[in-house]
């Protein structure tokens, strides 16, 4: 395929996914916004006033980056895993792409791009909603770091969602990982607290949680505060991207879990 044909194929996949996510916006965009509002209300307004400050900043301002990151992670992941699983099992629509000259790497790019778009879009909406709860005092330390971590985190979890979608053999297989792996990792990754407020043993446990590094970097972009140096967060993020790209490439190219 020529570069233009590759672009058309990529655009087709992405356009189709974006049209789908806007068509069912009540399922794709609304739940995260409502959940985030509840978090802002409970942890920010109700409990936050009693907690006071965390690392020298207002607790509400402290939790906002983590909650935005929570929205990005869950939406990027679920969009890719479900879209891929749906096209593999429900309608076998994946055959439309497999019989076409679209190469495997472009198929991966098409599916994960949908996840990135949804993750970043929902994250932006949650961020805008948080402005109402922080009284229009949202701190921004470095917009490039915020934007970079948002995109890269959405990329990581889109890739992870695609692995899940390829391997899943039933709808349970799609729900198991977000429920039993992703959600606990996000909650224990420092959304609601600084790692320094934990006992020593719990701090070590947090350091093996990859999501901790993402939230750490993202929060640095807003507040200029970090539990660990920013470069470590970035290195972990890049390492995860390289690993997951390799896994996806192998799965799609060999047709494992996809072709008979």
């Amino acid at each position, binding site marked *: *395929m020529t570069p*233009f044909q*590759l672009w058309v194929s990529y655009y087709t996949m992405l356009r*189709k996914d974006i049209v789908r996510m806007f068509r069912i916006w009540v399922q794709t965009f609304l739940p995260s916004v409502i959940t985030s509002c509840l978090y802002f209300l409970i942890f920010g307004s109700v409990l936050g006033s009693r907690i006071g400050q965390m690392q020298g900043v207002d607790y509400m301002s402290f939790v906002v980056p983590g909650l935005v990151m929570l929205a990005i992670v869950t939406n990027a992941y679920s969009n890719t895993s479900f879209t891929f699983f749906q*096209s593999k099992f429900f309608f076998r629509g994946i055959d*439309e792409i497999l019989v076409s000259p679209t*190469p495997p790497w472009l198929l991966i790019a098409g599916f994960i791009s949908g996840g990135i778009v949804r993750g970043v879009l929902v994250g932006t909406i949650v961020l805008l909603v948080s402005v109402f709860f922080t009284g229009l005092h949202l701190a921004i330390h470095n917009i490039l770091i915020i934007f970079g971590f948002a995109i890269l985190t959405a990329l990581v979890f889109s890739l992870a969602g695609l692995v899940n979608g390829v391997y899943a053999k039933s709808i349970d297989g799609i729900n198991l990982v977000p429920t039993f792996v992703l959600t606990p990792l996000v909650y224990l990754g420092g959304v609601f607290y600084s790692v320094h407020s934990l006992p020593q043993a719990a701090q070590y446990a947090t350091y093996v949680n990859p999501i901790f590094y993402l939230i750490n970097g993202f929060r640095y972009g807003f507040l200029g505060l970090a539990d660990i140096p920013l470069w470590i967060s970035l290195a972990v993020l890049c390492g995860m991207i390289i690993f997951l790209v390799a896994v996806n490439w192998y799965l799609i190219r060999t047709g494992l879990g996809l072709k*008979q």
Partner: protein
Amino acid sequence: MQALSIKDLTKTYATGTKALKGVSLEIPESDFFALLGPNGAGKTTIIGITTGLVNKTSGTIEVFGVDTSTEPEKAKMQMGLVGQEVNFNPFEKVLNIVVNQAGYYGIPRAVAIPRAEKLLTDLGLGEKMDQNAMTLSGGMKRRLMIARALVNEPKFLILDEPTAGVDVELRRGMWEYLTALNKKGVTILLTTHYLEEAEQLAKHVAIINKGEIVESGTVEEVIAKHHTGDAKESPGYRGGRLEEVFLKLTSEK
């Protein structure tokens, strides 16, 4: 030039089932080729491997001289597939299904939309273009799949039981459409359980049974070689000559 050249193709599924045991097959350019065989004979596996939906165990496949293993994208660019099962999103609009398929072949929407509209109109779906695919009848869904397979203007069209469950009138309409396509130079590979369909449409035929090609040649050659006329004596028999040959070859193995 051969449109399709298959050499020593084998396929063993993860379950241990040997679906293909060294199949070799050649389909000349512009041919109308019928691949016949009972259920589970290996027809759909051959099609699946040719189009990239199934991984082969060994062997080679070339489409217009292009190896599907080493240059899959180039080979796929020349093919169109009408699968056995309905495999599109029923919540999508009919026109979008065809236009999106064109997109996967690198055809921009500005070109794909008028082309899809013409194909759908030609296939009698002109009034259904803006409706969701779930509103289509079974026969309409089959025609939609044909339109989708033709949107990239393939030189080689593969149809896996396209007339299964389709009423007589619609089936005849499909025959006319496919014959006209073939006359324009499109090579067609058809699998079907309707033997009279193959006898009337195909120039060449191959019969596969238990993963092996048991006979191939022109329809006349195959009939001449195996037709005995004995079946006419069977009470209630109404099939054609090819059906008789088919039953003889597939029950002998």
